[in-house]
């Protein structure tokens, strides 16, 4: 068991992945819905702030976890070029998961807003109040949120492509339950050899 290379991400990595996938997708939809809703704006923003900060904390834990744990090697079905793109897109996802909430926090600081979490709990400003800085960060928050959404779509598209068309059982690598390595290698994997 120990001698075999791992085929699944570590259990805490898998838990973090799916928990954060739900949170981040919810966050994108809340963000996009609140800026075009007069009636629901208030309660949506009230969720958006603490949920975003929770994502920031989890993303930092996840980044440390990724540095500390061994990643399973890429499946043999992935060409070197695809591996490079996959790694790069994962790095981009990490960068955005951390940058977006930081920018959210920074823009509220620059906009001289109190950064209310819930009840009397609030965060200190991380930037001085400054009009132009607020305007730049507010625009960056929108652009990067759209970029995050596009990157997630590409990520999900790639996973679906592997699952449905390459058929290399890539989803198993992220499955929350343990998946044993198939005794016989994948037909697709075999055809490459």
């Amino acid at each position: 068991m120990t001698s075999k290379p791992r085929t699944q991400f570590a259990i805490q990595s898998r838990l973090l992945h799916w928990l954060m996938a739900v949170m981040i997708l919810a966050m994108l939809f809340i963000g996009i819905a609140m800026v075009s809703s007069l009636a629901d704006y208030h309660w949506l923003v009230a969720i958006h702030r603490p949920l975003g900060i929770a994502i920031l904390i989890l993303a930092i834990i996840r980044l440390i976890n990724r540095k500390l744990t061994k990643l399973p090697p890429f499946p043999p079905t992935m060409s070197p070029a695809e591996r490079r793109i996959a790694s790069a897109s994962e790095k981009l996802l990490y960068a955005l998961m951390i940058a977006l909430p930081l920018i959210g926090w920074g823009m509220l600081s620059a906009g001289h807003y109190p950064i209310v979490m819930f009840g009397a709990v609030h965060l200190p400003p991380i930037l001085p109040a400054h009009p132009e800085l607020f305007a730049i960060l507010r625009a960056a928050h929108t652009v990067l949120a759209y970029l995050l959404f596009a990157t997630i779509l590409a990520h999900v598209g790639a996973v679906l492509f592997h699952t449905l068309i390459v058929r290399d059982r890539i989803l198993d690598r992220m499955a929350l339950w343990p998946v044993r390595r198939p005794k016989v290698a994948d037909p697709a994997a075999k055809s490459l050899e």
Partner: protein
Amino acid sequence: MKPFLTIDPTLTRPALLLRLALIGLILGGVAALFAWRAGWFTPHTLTQKTVIDTFEKVDGVFPGFRRNHAKGVCFRGYFESNGNAAALSRAGVFSPGRIPVLGRFSLGGGLPYVTDAPSTVRALAVQFQLPNGEEWRTAMINLPVFPVQNVQQFAEQLVAFAPDPATGKPDPAKIQAFVAAHPATARALPLIQQRPISSGFADSPYYGLNAFTFLGTDGKPTPVRWTMIPEQPFQPSPAADPATLDKNYLFDNLIAAVRTAPQRWRLILTIGQPGDPTDDATITWPDDRQKIDAGTLVVEQIESEAVSPARDMNFDPTILPDGIAISDDPLLSARSAAYSVSFTRREGERKEPSAVTTAETGK
């Protein structure tokens, strides 16, 4: 060399196409859901952006200025709580003691260089700085009731009361049609028109209008409305021909008054009874409702917009400390949303000098 992508060789061509279509459907579906939530398929519903666009259409765009309450001057001072409201709200602002405040006096409307006139809506915005870092922001006006119940009516009213480009005056027919279609406005307008108009900012009351919910230490909710009642005695608006008054006379008089002595308002809370509407700012609560004097707002120093941090502040009425919560009044979420768009636009624009300058305020 390996191909970039490999396809499972056991897949038949139709199966492959079907699977590709499925992927396209899933990704397209999620993207469409996103676009739908963003309102891309319903471009004609009223949003915070179109509300602010309406202000800009009616008043024009004055870069760097608030899209409403554009003409104003800022101030510093303090709030001295007497502890009377501490039983109703656990918010630190109501514990006995003094906390710093920042604020802004303004005139309603999107014209930053408009000539001061007695009947123009006067406003007071306050940021209470609580000792634990929490904030309470409130924006109040000198009308006893609001003319509309919700933001849809507000946007319609903006258009109906806009000056006709041909005459430069609002079109009475349009106003009549709007009032006829909105009984709440028809009830509110006489109260607004018959209000006693004081001589200036210093002897005006300022009404919060929207109802809020106070939460006690035990979590008990109480519906509350608040008003700032001036300690400065009421003086009627000057009878002089408005044309002879200075363009900034309201602001100049305020600056002179504060220079002579700090100006003071009592924060009066009106306690709602079960059944009192909390979702309709066009209706006052009955006169016999309990009133609590919660403390005194003291305006010590006037500052021009050019130097005051209150210029680059959004007096969003939903910025509340723990112990004050919004009510079911639909105006509150709508105000928060619209102020955010106005704030975001003006913060990104080059600032033009304000009508009331540092030379006038002395600071």
